[in-house]
Structures are given as structure tokens and as C-alpha cells.
């Protein structure tokens, strides 16, 4: 507890001169403003919050895990229905969306780098690009959902079996040369579409939350936050964003690609 004003002033001056700040601060028994009082060192704080973020992502894995389990079981049971359902998805839009997301992961990673190397304008640019790409993803997803709506593929509310009972007159199904499904099996396509909407919807919800946080971070970053050596928040958000991307990679493979070649 060194509270003489001179020393405090000295610490302040050191804090401004970038690199050796934290070392000098701890030497003086002071700590930077962003260090919470209950941590011994900044490193311990960064370590702990980082670890917490990984654990949180683990809970997210388990959360999505329930849906993946349901998908796995029902795909096994109703294989023809899941193949026919998958053929209704638009692989072009799906691929484009995958590229958009991977690009956003790149800009996010660059954002973390900018934050670490204290480039304020670079950080704002990277976060804004990530924000923009995230919005693009949601836009494309909306187009895809709209297609489903038009073809009456919304389970529960608005569902028609036409594409599966009479695939010859359905553009998407005809392209794959699908055979008509028996009524019993055709009805199970509704389960496929439910899982499609549940999984992509849950993913989209995570995207929306991520974009909202990005918006907040852009405002803060413009005001100079995250580029003073305290990068934990950007880093942890980056982890979250990459995680949401990885979920999408799995969804893309399981929902769009897996039934391309029979």
C-alpha cells in the first residue's frame, strides 16, 4: 500500500510509457486500473478469465451436443428422408456463407493481433469488418430461410410434403434425381427440417449475440479501449467468435454436404 502522492504519480507516468508498465507497477506495489483487486497479478487475471472462457465454450459444446445427438439418431432411423431433406438445401448459399464466416474469423484474428500490438485504427477496422461479415452471414441465412418458407418447408407451422412425394416436379430434388419417397418416410422430412432450423437457428442466435457484442466493442475501441495492453476482452470474444464459426463448419458438413453423393 504505497500511497505517497509522489510514488503514485510516478506509477501513473510509468503506466503511460507502454511496455514496462505492468512490471514497474507491481514493483511499486500499485496495479493498473484494469486489474481487479482480488487478483495478485495481471497475468493471473488474464489467465483466469481466459480459462473461464474456454470452460464456457465447453458448456456450449454440450449445449449443441444435445442437438447433434438428436440429429445423429434420427438420421440413422430415417436415412432416406434426411437425404431428401438435405437435397433441398442450397449448397451455393451454404458455401458462400461458410466462406463469409471463415473470412470473419480471419478479420477477428487480425483484430486480436491489432489489439495486442496496440493499433487502435487497425482494431476498429478489423472489428467493423467482422461486424459487416457477420451481418452478411445473417443476410444470406435470411434468404435461405425465405426459400424454405416459399417451399412450405417450415416444420410445425407451414409444412408441405410435395417436394418429397413428387420430386420430379421439384427443381432441387430433380437436380439430384431423387425418387419419390413413400408417404410414411416423406413425413419424416419434417424432423430433418426441424433439426435444420433448430441447429442453424441456435447458431444464428449465437451470431446475433456476437454481433451485438461486436457493436459494443467497436464503440469502445474507437474511444481507445483494448489497445492499452489489456487485451483479455478482445481475446476472449475472439474465442467465442471462432467457436461459433466451428459450429457452423460442422453444421455445413452435416446438413448440406453429407448427402451430396449417394
Amino acid at each position, binding site marked *: 500500500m504505497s500511497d505517497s502522492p509522489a510514488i503514485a504519480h510516478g506509477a501513473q507516468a510509468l503506466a503511460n510509457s507502454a511496455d514496462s508498465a505492468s512490471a514497474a507497477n507491481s514493483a511499486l506495489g500499485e496495479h493498473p486500473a484494469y486489474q481487479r483487486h*482480488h487478483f495478485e497479478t495481471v497475468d493471473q487475471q488474464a489467465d483466469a478469465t481466459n480459462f473461464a472462457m474456454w470452460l464456457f465454450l*465447453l458448456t456450449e459444446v454440450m449445449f449443441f451436443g444435445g442437438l447433434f445427438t*438428436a440429429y445423429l*439418431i434420427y438420421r440413422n432411423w430415417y436415412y432416406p428422408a434426411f437425404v431428401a431433406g438435405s437435397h433441398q438445401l442450397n449448397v451455393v448459399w451454404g458455401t458462400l456463407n461458410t466462406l463469409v464466416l471463415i473470412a470473419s474469423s480471419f478479420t477477428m484474428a487480425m483484430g486480436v493481433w491489432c489489439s495486442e500490438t496496440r493499433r487502435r485504427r487497425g482494431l476498429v477496422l478489423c472489428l467493423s469488418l467482422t461486424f459487416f461479415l457477420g451481418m452478411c452471414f445473417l443476410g444470406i441465412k435470411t434468404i435461405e430461410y425465405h426459400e424454405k418458407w416459399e417451399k412450405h418447408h417450415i*416444420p*410445425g*407451422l407451414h409444412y408441405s410434403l410435395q417436394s418429397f412425394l413428387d420430386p420430379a416436379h421439384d427443381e432441387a430434388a430433380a437436380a439430384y434425381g431423387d425418387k419419390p419417397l413413400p408417404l410414411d418416410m416423406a413425413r419424416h422430412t419434417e424432423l430433418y427440417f*426441424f433439426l435444420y432450423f*433448430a441447429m442453424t437457428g441456435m447458431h444464428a442466435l449465437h451470431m446475433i449475440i456476437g454481433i451485438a457484442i461486436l457493436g459494443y466493442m467497436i464503440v469502445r475501441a474507437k474511444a481507445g479501449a483494448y489497445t492499452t495492453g489489456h487485451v483479455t476482452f478482445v481475446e476472449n470474444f475472439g474465442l467465442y467468435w471462432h467457436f461459433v464459426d466451428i459450429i457452423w463448419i460442422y453444421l455445413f458438413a452435416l446438413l448440406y454436404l453429407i448427402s451430396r453423393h449417394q
Partner: protein
Amino acid sequence: MSATIVSLPDQSTARIPKVNFITKENGLLSWLLTGDHKRIAILYLISITFFFFIGGALAGLIRLELLTPQSDLMATDTYNKVFTMHGIIMIFLFLVPSVPATLGNFFIPMMIGAKDLALPRINLLSWYLYVVGGILVIYTMVAGGVDTGWTFTTPLSTHYINTNVMSTGMAVFIAGFSSIFTGLNFIVTLHKMRCPGMTWFRLPLFCWAHYAASILMVLGTPVLAIAVVLLALERTVGIGVFDPTKGGDPLLFQHLFWFYSHPAVYIMILPGMGVISETVSTFSRKRVFGYTAVAFSSVAIAVFGFFVWAHHMFIMGISNYAVLVFSLLTMLVAVPSAIKIFNWTFTLYKGSITFETPMLYSFGFMGLFTIGGMTGVFLGASGTDIHLTETYFIVAHFHFVMVGGMLMAFLAGIHFWWPKMTGRMYPEKISQLAAVVTFIGFNLTFFPQFILGTLGMPRRYAAYPPEFQILNVFSTAGATILGVGYLLPVLYLTWSLKYGAIAGNNPWQATGLEWTTQSPPLTENFVVTPIMDHEAYDYDWLEAQQAKEVASVR
């Protein structure tokens, strides 16, 4: 029993320290916006006690209805709502947060020599989520209740009843996140916040037990969350995932639900086992026998606990091979549980045992948990399970583990750490009486239910054949005694806040780091970060330490 280890400071001169975490700041807001783990623990303690007594009142109603064979006190559908609300409140709002959110929250940072949990704001958020969940449950009760049973079994909950399933589901979903955040916080804290010298194998076993329970909270609860989301979608939109007419399978819900809810019983019992390790060691003045074995048995329970869930579904139409495997795995859980019981017993062997209240409750725990655990093996064996499941045998088994085990452990812990939390002792004689009353009341309530179960009385009915009445009367009489046993601590503990003897730093002569601080502790727990230079439960170290202190005072 004159032998006692209690050593209190001279009451004529002793004072509660003026500056402590309770007096540091005043006003309601200083509590509602606090980041202090100790204050959050107190908030949790008040809220879970509140819900415990609501759940307890509902249990009273159940027993009152079952006093007579006919359904006369309430209509049968009201009875269904009453036992459902009893289950939901007791499981999600009392048992899951009971020890971790109160005692764990308060003492884990102190035991490892830290100033706070790693994420204080997340800790506060967890309490608020709990409160929102609790309010939704109260709303459900006011709006007319729900009658699915606490298990929300499909297709009953999705297709056949129209009570407040949605608000209850929402409550469970939100309370679940409160539990996730608590567990996450504990894991991070135990990994990153230990003081110098505090290695993993110097941690008090209380911390190990919480670590294991936290793994279950973090990995299990999200699966419950997604199960409840799917349930809600099935009810509202009719997506078909649990609907056989659309190709879905109601059993999938049970798989997802029990994937959390079986580990959840270990979430409930493991922290209780942590408490017992502390009290048994303290009140027999011996290091816990086989420290490493007890530590790893907690982790083993957590790991095995994830692979036994289908034993709740033996009669639900899962395959015979699944029954075989899950039956075997279920029996495996008995091994680490038995390791704990044996090791505590060996700790008692040749120890200097004294019989303060926490120790009485601990003995209660050991006996009742053993009975509860052993009957669990009966139920894990698929042959006997087919006869016994859905009877009162299940009810008795579960209550022996949860009420006889967990609640005893909770009360043991509350009494054990009460002097540290409040700075004052509880009155010893009356609390010993309460412990004995609880034990008698408990056995009278639930032992007859084992017999009822083997005779074939089904659970979840408001009426029963007249030949079962005598045992049910015993059970209801016992519940009355049990009620007194639970009411007493509330009264005398409240009384002790003002009139209890000043406890001093270490009234039990216990070894944990939490006993080296003042009572009640400072907001930052320790003036200087402690350095752990001895093993856990090292009574020789404590003796040397005290000798040194006396010498320096002279």
C-alpha cells in the same frame, strides 16, 4: 459428554471485530450489487432457506393427504401439482445450489487463500439468475401450478396436459445457468487462485468435492438446457422431435433429461461429502484417512456419474443390452462412494471423537447415506428394479440420499461454519437436540416407505389401498417430527446472531486456512496472502502454531 474441543475466547473481553465483511458497507444496495463472495453466499443462504420452507410446506401437504387411504384433503390433480412443485423447488432451487452456492461460495476462496472467486460479477449474476428462476417458480404456483412431475416426462408434458409447463421449463432453464456459472467459477478459482504453497494435494477435501461437482454442473447442465428448449418447441410449435406420430421419440427427451439429472444427484451429494470430510476430520482430530483416495473418489463419482443415466429408464423400453451395461456401470458408482464411507470410518478409528452438533449431523449422514446408497444398488440391478421402480421404494431411496445425506451434510456444514460466518456460536445443547430430533423424524418418515415400496405401493398417487395405511401414518407422524427438527435451527440460529457466544478465530481448533482469519472475516479475507507450508488436516502443525502464539503473547 463433557469432552469437547471447543475453545472460545474469554467472553468478558471478546468482541466481534468492528471491521468485517458484514459491517464494511451498509445499505441494501451494498448487498444487491456486491462482488464479495461471502455476501453473495449469505444472499444465497437466505434465498435457498426461503425456498426450502416452501418446498417443505408442500411436502407437509403431501404427507397430510397420505394420512388416509382416500384422496380427501385435496383433489387428485391438485395432489399431482403439489408433489411436482415440491420436487421442482427442492431439486432446482434448494438441493442443487444448497452447499455449493452457500458454503462453497463462502469458503472455497478462503480455503485456498484467495481474496475472492475468480469471477465475482459472474458470481453475482448467478444469484440473480437463481432469483429470476425462483420468481418464475412462484409465478407458476400462483398461476395454477404444473403437474408433470419434476421430470417433465414426455409425451405427458408435451401432449397430454395443459398446465404451466412453459413457465416451469423457463425457470429450470434459467436456474440451470445460475448453476453453470457457479460451477464454472469454482473450477477457474481452484485452478488459478490458489495461494503460494497450496498444491492440489494440500487442498481441503471440501474443495476436491466441489471441483468434481463443478465438472458435473458445467458439462451436464447445458444438456438439460437444450432438452428444455426442445420441450418448449415441441409444446409450442409441435416440431415432432419427441412426437411418435411424426417419427420422433419421447424416449429421446428422457435420455437428454437424465443425462443431466442423474449427474445432478451427484452435483447435490458431492459438496455434502466435502462437508463431511471436514467435520469428521475436525471432530476426531485426525487427518482424513487416505486423503488421496477420498480426493480421487470424488472425481471418480463425477466421471462414472455421466455413464449411468439410463438406469432411470429400465422399464421404459430401452434395449436389453443397454440395461445390462447401465446396470453394471451403476453398480460401479457404489465403489467410490464406499471408499468415502470406509475412509471416514477409518478416520474415526482411534481418533479423539467429540460430539458437537456438526459431528452428530455427520454421523447421521454416514448412516443414512449408506442405507440410501445400498438401496441404490438394489435399484441399479435391473431385475429388482423392475419390481421396485415407480414404488415408494424409489421415493425412500432418493430421500435417504438427498434428505438423509445431503440435508444432514448441509446442516452439519451450516453449524460447523456458522461461527466463522457470523462470529457467534450457535447454542450447543438445543442444536444437539435438533440434530437428534431430525434423525429420529427422518427415519420414522422414510423407513416405512421402503417397506411400502416392497409391498408394491406406487408413488405419485393421492389414494392407496387401506392395508397400507398404518405405515403411511408412521410416515406422516415422522414428517411432523422432521418438520420440528428443521424449524429449530432457523429459530436458534437467528437467535444466535444477537445472543450467541463470541466465537473467536478458531473455536473448533480446526486446520483449514479459513480458520486462521478473524470471524466474521474481512472483505478481502486475508490481510496478507497466506503461504501454505503444511499438508491439509495437519493437527501437529496447528499445535505447534498455537504453542508459538502463546509463547509470543507471554
